């Protein structure tokens, strides 16, 4: 059995904000018509969470449900629980027209935290990160410089960012550059 390792194996950087790759995160893509009862049930029963509203995320200690598009949810759970979570979902889905796939090893997850976390993010994404516009609970798909990224806030000073594993190194370099010491803009 080989040992699973995340893209950057917990790489960290300390600057304007603290940046770290959080390591392995279980992720399941669930596609289908999100209005379908079996699809809603598959997501909510497997995670113990309620369905996220449009552009929102629901989380608890162990799991998360992210609204990705009108026909896509991202189910988050512990990395070693993906198999059992997926099995639960498949059982609830039955013959419903839907797709549930383990994508954990296709992604990387970063955390940006600290009083300047909003500024670091704002340097990289075409998103209004003012506290009035972006708060914990919202989920946003956008771009980070040249690559797609999705993110939400765990609390007032912490962002969680998902990107493709193939660009994990690029994203980490971006975040390090944006979080360089003495590079605050003092906008927010």
């Amino acid at each position, binding site marked *: 059995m080989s040992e699973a390792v995340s893209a950057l194996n917990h790489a960290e950087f300390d600057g304007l904000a603290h940046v770290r790759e959080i390591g392995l995160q279980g992720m399941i893509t669930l596609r289908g018509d999100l209005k379908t009862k079996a699809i809603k049930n598959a997501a909510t029963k497997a995670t113990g969470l309620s369905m996220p509203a*449009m552009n929102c995320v629901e989380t608890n200690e162990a799991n998360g449900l992210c609204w990705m*598009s*009108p026909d896509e949810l991202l189910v988050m759970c512990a990395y070693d629980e993906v198999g059992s979570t997926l099995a639960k979902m498949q059982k609830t889905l039955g013959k419903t027209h839907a797709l549930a796939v383990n994508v954990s090893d296709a992604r990387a997850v970063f955390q940006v935290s600290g009083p300047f976390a909003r500024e670091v993010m704002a340097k990289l994404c*075409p998103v209004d990160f003012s506290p009035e516009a972006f708060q914990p609970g919202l989920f946003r*798909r*956008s*771009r980070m410089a040249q690559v797609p990224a999705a993110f939400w806030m765990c609390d007032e000073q912490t962002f969680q960012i998902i990107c493709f594993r193939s660009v994990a190194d690029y994203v980490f370099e971006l975040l390090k550059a944006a979080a360089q010491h003495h590079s605050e803009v003092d906008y927010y």
Partner: protein
Amino acid sequence: MIRINCPVCGSRDENEFTYGGDANVVRPAMDEAETGPWLDYVFMRDNPRGPHREYWHHVMGCRQWLMLERDTLTHEIGDCILARGVA
């Protein structure tokens, strides 16, 4: 900077989107045997100065195909709807 009012996500920066072509083009019937209509369909495009209907893809967002009106002179974006069911 162009903002596009995605019917799913709301107002978003243009660089989350990618241009998907002229939305006025209509494909000839599949049994069309003349080359003229196919030539027009594949290659010939108007280049209007003013309002233009076009497809856009919210590729770095909700990934839905959209149809919107853009003024080629001012870049003003008019109505924006889901392309699903239109084409």
